[in-house]
């Protein structure tokens, strides 16, 4: 018996109804066996620790985490994977339809796990209640949707809803996503899904210390002794610059540290080895001598006198500063009737997308090709060429589907290691970050230390505002300069402030690099400004909403940078839309609390409010997008999708705009995905710029292509186009007249198109002067949100019970996608406000680092406001980042309303809230 057990490594089970025999080493996880030995890449790996549920499969009908199930434990069992279910299970088919209709898959990386869990539920309870769905999906994390669309979709599927999914309609239609089908069938390929099984694997050796000097041992001997290892890469193997960064002039992060590391998780070497051997290879066994040195982890430490400098160029560890001033802040404060002030601090926030960074690279005809998840293919291309010391033409980036980005996948991660490994070995190579590696080494939201004083006159007008913010930018620059520039422009909030001064500094520390995260520092500054606004209102005995309305920006009123807009300033409209709901909610809270007091309940209801604004596009810097489209001789109308869709739906939005401009239905379009060889540069997916900027490029491209078609047949502007793929013809109906264009007879361009257009758009901006005066953005988006919470006065526990979010999007190109962005953004704001705190070395996994689960997200009522913008395509504005700006301050204001506790530190974990409640009682 025993010998038999130890020798036998093959295991047989049924996979999606078919018997399989899998040869796997003992102890291999089912997730690994399914993905690499059975080709079931629909099973995703997000954490490998039972925390995220992305790997959920059905084992004899019950959902289990494949990553915690040894393959040999499933002998003779029935295993069903999401793709198998989608193919054959009737519940899965209903669910995928409902998911598409409800926009329940954004990036789609959590979707397989959600679907598997939901199928198991529907089999047991065909028409589940919302609570039953919540319980059944409790073990699957989603970072994009805020869960509500998923809950709705599963409940709807249970009620037998099988309405067809529309992929049609132009601007304003709640069309299903154009890229939705693959996300629901399990066919979508993310960063770790493209490499062939068996490709050599790259693993990085990282620093266990925040600051240390090191000496590498005899790595050649180590390679020779370790079976399966092919080679090692260190700084010596970097042919070009051993540095990268995202902002020209700030490329300060080495691919491999050379003699000293500046943060825990910094790369010092990478090993390439055969796939089987790398499964058990641990880079920490490599010979290296570490000499730990004392590290500076906070802004205060880094700025203290005598602290060593992380980088020679940054005296006092100040990486860069930002400044905006108008009027005279001190004089304004001196003239104020009431002044409030506060000191605030926030934590590192981890993006925690469910897909860790991953990719695949190979050398093709002497060029390097990298397929990986990314938000910025053209930036990757430039950066990799610089590291390899080759011309950009020698690099091709093929973005895979992105399982969540939120800003962090703008920076390089796996790309340089993959490129160097492919070049050195001459073989195709792959790598996927472990969850810990992803959390240790990629960028975070900047922790902020903010001091703010605001004064107002007794008539309720803000008359003086003095803001000072320090931002912990970690060991390397990344997007720190952007944060330093954006914050002073936005710290006023969407209000008219005559006398204003805002200073920001980004400070180097021995922490992981802080970079871009939805909002670039603005969510942090909004916490200070919006909670102090509530305190000011209280001192002035004004209703918080009334007070905000009194100070809100308007068309024609200048912002703190002296910019004014003729149209599109929508904050007042947002606040007004909330006004009736605000009064109802505040009154209801009063009634609820009265009952609770008499019933001796420890709970108190609170209702809070906050507003926010956000400039779309780069701050006072050009950031063009180019969009290409063409009609093939066959008659297909093809749109090149150069912008990366990270789940927010930009492919769909851009396609809807293009379809509207050229005058066809959305389903008439075919697409070619982002590929730096064939799609022009649509810029990075960040700064909420894709709808606005790439959208405008798509509109121009559509208009130009339409013009070309109409001119060919002399048709009027009213004519309609009929796309007939495969026919070789294009029909134009102009009133009673029917024109036919014989496409096959036309000459084709270098892309093979009979007709094509390529247009660019760059928003009009003006640089900021020394006082930060100028036109930093061509448009702002605006928002205001209400948060209703219950606070347990004995536990410090805050439970959000409802959000009402009013968002001015200029024009909702796709209302379903708008709602998806809003709910997802609110969820991230909730996480930042109440639970998320990344501590290097302590919370480098998804059980210590908490993100909202399906049980944490209450209903979100979205109110779409459309104050058309002069520059936006059809009036549309960006949205992606605006959504989470008001959420944290609205929650903090609600906590204060409920309990009297004044929250000045994010996240407001229960212990901090309880301490603040006790402090408020004593005061």
């Amino acid at each position, binding site marked *: 018996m025993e010998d038999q057990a130890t020798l036998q490594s093959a295991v047989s089970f049924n996979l999606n109804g078919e018997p399989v025999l899998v040869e796997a080493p003992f102890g291999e996880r089912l997730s690994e066996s399914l993905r690499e030995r059975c080709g079931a890449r629909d099973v995703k790996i997000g954490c490998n620790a*039972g925390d995220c549920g992305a790997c959920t499969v059905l084992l004899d009908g019950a959902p289990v*985490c494949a990553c915690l*199930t040894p393959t*040999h434990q499933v002998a003779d069992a029935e295993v069903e994977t999401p793709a198998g279910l989608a193919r054959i299970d009737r519940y899965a088919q209903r669910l995928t339809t409902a998911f598409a209709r409800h926009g329940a898959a954004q990036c789609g990386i959590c979707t397989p796990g959600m679907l598997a869990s939901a199928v198991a539920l529907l089999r047991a309870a065909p028409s589940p209640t919302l609570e039953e769905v919540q319980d059944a999906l409790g073990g699957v994390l989603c970072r994009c949707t805020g869960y509500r669309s998923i809950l709705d979709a599963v409940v709807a599927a249970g009620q037998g809803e099988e309405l067809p999914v529309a992929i049609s309609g132009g601007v304003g239609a709640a069309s299903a996503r154009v890229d939705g089908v693959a996300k629901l069938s399990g066919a979508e390929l993310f960063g770790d899904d493209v490499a062939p099984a068996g490709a050599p694997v790259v693993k990085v050796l990282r620093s266990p210390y925040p600051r240390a000097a090191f000496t590498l041992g005899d790595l050649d001997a180590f390679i020779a002794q370790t079976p399966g290892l092919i080679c090692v890469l260190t700084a010596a193997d970097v042919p070009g610059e051993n540095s990268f960064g995202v902002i020209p002039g700030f490329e300060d992060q080495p691919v491999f540290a050379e003699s000293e590391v500046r943060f825990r998780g910094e790369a010092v070497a990478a090993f390439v080895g055969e796939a089987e051997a790398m499964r058990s290879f641990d880079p920490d066994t490599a010979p290296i001598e570490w000499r730990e040195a004392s590290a500076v982890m906070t802004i205060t430490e880094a700025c203290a006198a005598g602290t060593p400098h992380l980088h020679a160029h940054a005296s006092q560890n100040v990486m860069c500063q930002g400044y905006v001033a108008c009027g005279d802040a001190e004089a304004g404060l001196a003239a104020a009737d009431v002044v409030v002030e506060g000191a605030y601090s926030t934590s590192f926030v981890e993006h925690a997308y469910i897909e860790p960074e991953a990719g695949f690279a190979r050398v093709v005809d002497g060029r390097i090709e990298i397929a990986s998840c990314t938000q910025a293919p053209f930036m990757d291309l430039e950066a990799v060429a610089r590291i390899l010391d080759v011309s950009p033409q020698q690099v091709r980036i093929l973005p895979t589907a992105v399982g969540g980005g939120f800003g962090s996948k703008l920076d390089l991660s796996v790309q340089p290691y993959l490129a160097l490994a492919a070049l050195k070995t001459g073989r195709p190579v792959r790598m996927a970050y472990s969850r810990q590696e992803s959390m240790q080494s990629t960028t975070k939201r900047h922790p902020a230390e903010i001091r703010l004083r605001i004064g107002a006159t007794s008539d309720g007008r803000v008359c003086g505002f003095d803001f000072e913010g320090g931002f912990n930018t970690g060991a390397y620059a990344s997007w720190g300069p952007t944060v330093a520039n954006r914050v002073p422009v936005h710290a006023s909030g969407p209000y008219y402030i005559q006398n204003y001064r805002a200073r920001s500094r980004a400070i180097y520390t021995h922490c992981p690099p802080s970079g871009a995260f939805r909002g670039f520092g603005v969510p942090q500054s909004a916490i200070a400004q919006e909670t102090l606004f509530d305190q000011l209102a209280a001192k002035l005995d004004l209703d918080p909403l009334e007070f905000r309305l009194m100070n809100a920006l308007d068309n024609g009123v200048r912002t703190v940078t002296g910019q004014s807009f003729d149209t599109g300033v929508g904050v007042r409209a947002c606040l007004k839309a909330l006004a009736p709901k605000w009064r109802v909610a505040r009154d209801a809270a009063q009634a609820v609390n009265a009952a609770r007091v008499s019933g001796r309940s420890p709970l108190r209801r609170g209702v809070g409010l906050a507003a926010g604004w956000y400039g779309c596009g780069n701050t006072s810097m050009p950031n063009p997008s180019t969009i290409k489209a063409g009609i093939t001789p066959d008659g297909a109308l093809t749109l090149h999708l150069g912008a990366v869709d990270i789940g927010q739906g930009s492919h769909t939005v851009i396609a809807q705009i293009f379809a509207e401009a050229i005058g066809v239905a959305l389903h008439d379009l075919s697409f070619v995905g982002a590929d730096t060889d064939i799609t022009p540069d649509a810029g990075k997916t960040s700064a909420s710029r894709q709808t606005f900027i790439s959208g405008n490029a798509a509109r121009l491209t559509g208009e130009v292509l339409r013009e070309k078609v109409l001119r060919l047949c002399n048709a009027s502007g009213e004519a309609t186009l009929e796309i007939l793929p495969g026919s070789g013809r294009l029909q134009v109906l102009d009133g009673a007249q029917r024109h036919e264009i014989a496409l096959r007879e036309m000459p084709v361009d270098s892309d093979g198109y009979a007709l094509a257009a390529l247009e660019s758009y760059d928003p009009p901006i003006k640089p900021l002067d020394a006082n930060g005066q100028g036109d930093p953005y061509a448009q702002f988006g605006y928002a205001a949100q209400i948060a209703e919470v219950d606070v347990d006065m004995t536990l410090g526990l805050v439970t959000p019970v409802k959000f009402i979010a009013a968002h001015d999007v200029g024009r909702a190109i796709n209302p379903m996608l708008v709602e998806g962005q809003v709910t997802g953004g609110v969820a991230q704001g909730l996480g930042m406000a109440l639970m998320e705190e990344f501590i290097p070395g302590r919370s480098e996994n998804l059980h210590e680092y908490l993100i909202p689960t399906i049980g944490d997200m209450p209903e979100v009522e979205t109110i779409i406001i459309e104050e058309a913008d002069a520059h936006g395509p059809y009036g549309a504005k960006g949205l992606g980042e605006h959504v989470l700006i008001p959420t944290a301050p609205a929650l903090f204001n609600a906590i204060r309303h409920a309990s009297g506790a004044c929250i000045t530190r994010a996240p407001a974990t229960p212990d901090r809230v309880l301490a603040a409640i006790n402090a408020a009682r004593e005061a």
Partner: protein
Amino acid sequence: MIPAKFEYHRPDTLSEAVALLAHHGDDARVIAGGQSLTPMMKLRLAAPGHLVDLQAIAELRARGSVAGFVKIGATCRQAELITDESISRLCPLLREAALQIADPQVRNMGTIGGNVANGDPGNDMPGLMQCLNAVFALQGPKGGREVAARDYYEAAYVTSAADDEILTLIKIPTPPIGHGWAYEKQKRKIGDYATAAAAVLLTKTNGVCDSASIAMTNLGETPLFAEEAGKLLVGSTLDEAALKAAAKAAVAITEPAEDGRGPVEFKRAVAEVMLLRALKRAAGRAQ
């Protein structure tokens, strides 16, 4: 990153499993649902050379109620416990607590035996078993023995079971009809271990408490059985003052450690709230 060189055994009988453990000594470890062991192996907190899988052993899966005891085989899964109506009727506390453990996927694999044998102070079942005064049956090369749950836990991950002993069965004295029960767990999110949790089982006759048992989770290196606190309640009418006094007495024996769930004083405060809530609910349920 599971060590490459280890071997896996899937015996069909308990005696084979015991023999395997005896043969491989320190180098062997049993695996049940793997929901605690697999993450530990990944983090190299555990690196056994031989894994002995208990899942194929039919006799370890049986459960039922016999002669005044609810008996639960070690490899009974948490999800099975939740859906077992007869056990839930006899001892509703088990279901109430099991529902607060982890998430559906983990409960579908994780076993009761693994949960109590693991020795992690964060596990919920050990405190529960102390509250219920359960007895664990162990089987080793030298035969079988029984250890009371209240004597089983020595320190974090250290129990009174020897490395070559397998926990085979959990025996719970069936609580009297009309007993009151409650499990109160404060956690930060779905799937989280407790910041503090309290289990309470009590009985009363004519409004006077005649037995009370209180235990706590994740407030020390081991689960904590608050014997004195329970005694304080006996003879009382379970009035507010008595419940408060019992909760205070229970909090007095806690030794929480500061971690991501909060500082020590906060945990004590949460523990007191959990205890009071559990006591109140149990008192309200007792007939």
